């Protein structure tokens, strides 16, 4: 589904990704762990096409298409969802309006009919219910005045509504309380653990991986994948730390 080869990405004059390669197939969940500043968020932004993140070498293919040629909104329509480490507040724009317009733009660009107001509300209620989020929060402005944990939960409601092929989730678990983590974990499984979907789970903690069991675990350090293994690698990291495992 996603094949990244020798990706180099810079922000300003600083090279942050230094030859990163990674392959995800449909039906797989991959976890990426790594020290602060390693380039994990940079990878998600580079794949999302964030302005200012310049790809200087390498390639990224998504379902056979050159991802790097697409504009950010086209990448979303192609089926890529970014769960942000720091979800952004948009004053004055309600979650429902934002998501309905987003979803319908995606559908339009795929040649699908837009959802009517009633159909959309039904879908939004179902996904909010799945993530145990109050519908009233969806009527509020996007992330404005949401707590850290509420923002992360809102990201997952958005993912449920948009129903992407590939979700790149950047520390979706950080900021969640114990119960919320369980809800979000089972939300991710319900929405994304399907034979035609894949997940790239960026996390620092084993507790999310206990809930959303990865098929592969990668260690990203200094702009590269330096080690790849199965779920046991995460446990080993928890025991011994990055220095010991990735050295």
């Amino acid at each position, binding site marked *: 589904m996603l094949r990244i080869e020798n990706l180099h990405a810079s922000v300003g004059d600083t090279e942050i990704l230094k030859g990163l390669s990674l392959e995800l197939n449909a039906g797989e969940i991959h976890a990426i762990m790594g020290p602060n500043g390693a380039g994990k968020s940079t990878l998600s932004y580079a794949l*999302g*096409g*964030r*302005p200012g993140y310049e790809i200087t070498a390498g390639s990224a293919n998504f379902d056979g298409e050159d991802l790097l040629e697409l*504009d*950010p*909104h086209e*990448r*979303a*329509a192609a089926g890529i*969802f*970014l769960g*942000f480490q720091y*979800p*952004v*507040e*948009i*004053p*004055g*724009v309600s979650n429902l*309006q*934002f*998501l309905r*317009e*987003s*979803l319908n*733009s*995606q559908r339009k*660009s795929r040649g699908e009919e837009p959802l009517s107001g009633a159909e959309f509300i039904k879908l939004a209620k179902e996904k909010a219910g799945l993530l145990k989020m109050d519908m009233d929060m969806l009527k509020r*402005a996007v992330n404005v005045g949401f707590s850290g944990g509420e923002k992360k939960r809102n990201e997952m409601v*958005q993912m449920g509504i*948009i129903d992407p092929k590939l979700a790149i989730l950047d520390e979706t678990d950080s900021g969640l309380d114990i119960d919320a983590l369980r809800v979000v974990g089972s939300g991710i499984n319900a929405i994304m653990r399907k034979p035609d979907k894949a997940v790239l789970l960026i996390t620092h903690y084993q507790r999310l991986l206990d809930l959303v069991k990865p098929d592969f675990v990668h260690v990203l350090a200094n702009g590269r994948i330096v080690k790849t293994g199965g779920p046991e690698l995460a446990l080993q990291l928890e025991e011994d730390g990055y220095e010991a495992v990735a050295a």
Partner: protein
Amino acid sequence: MTTTLPLPTKRDEAWRYADLKALEAVWPKLDGPEKIAVAAGESASRQISVLPIIDGVGIVDLDVTIGDGANFALHVLAVAADYGRIQVKVTLGKGAHFELGGAILGSGTQTLEIVTETIHAEPNATSNQVVRSVLAGKATGSFLGKINVARDAQKTDAAQSVKAMLLDRTATANAKPELEIFADDVKCAHGATVGELDKQALFYMAARGLPPEQAQKLMLQAFIADAFVSMDDDTAREAIESKALEALEGLS
């Protein structure tokens, strides 16, 4: 009645950002201010979403007197003119209220302005003015708000909130409050900001699938909505907001 006053100059404070060249062409044809009187205890409102254009120049000139305990709400859209000016002089009676909500939406080389003179002549009156500008190209959008609080006008509460969003670095926004206060127990809150669209929000919206034009439109719509939240009449608000949206779509 045709005006016989001399053409204003840039030295006239209330005309410092005006397009005097454009004005000159229509100056002899202008009528004097329209007088509006709101009787004591009454409520009145006015919405202006289309300027009366002569040769590309659209000028609205109002002289409003709000009686004791009365209130007047004015909501305006400064759009679609080479030079557009909405000029309002308001005199408030005891305990009266004046509400202004205005949006200035300009592009190209348009010069658009809202100029108010609010006279708190008596005690306990309140005024609230909210102006939002969205400016593209080489447009100039200005708000000049003069507030005059008379010696007897204790407990006056006069607020102004002015925000501009520049879509291009070549556009200009001016915000100029001018306070003349002769009473001592007075609240005059003023806030003015100039900014650009939040790039992080634009990327966030793109990451959910919104094309840039649509993301920008959503954010601008939310931005100018501040100017119209004070309208009680939903139908009137929707009407002026849909005019504003039309103008926004023409900007980028």
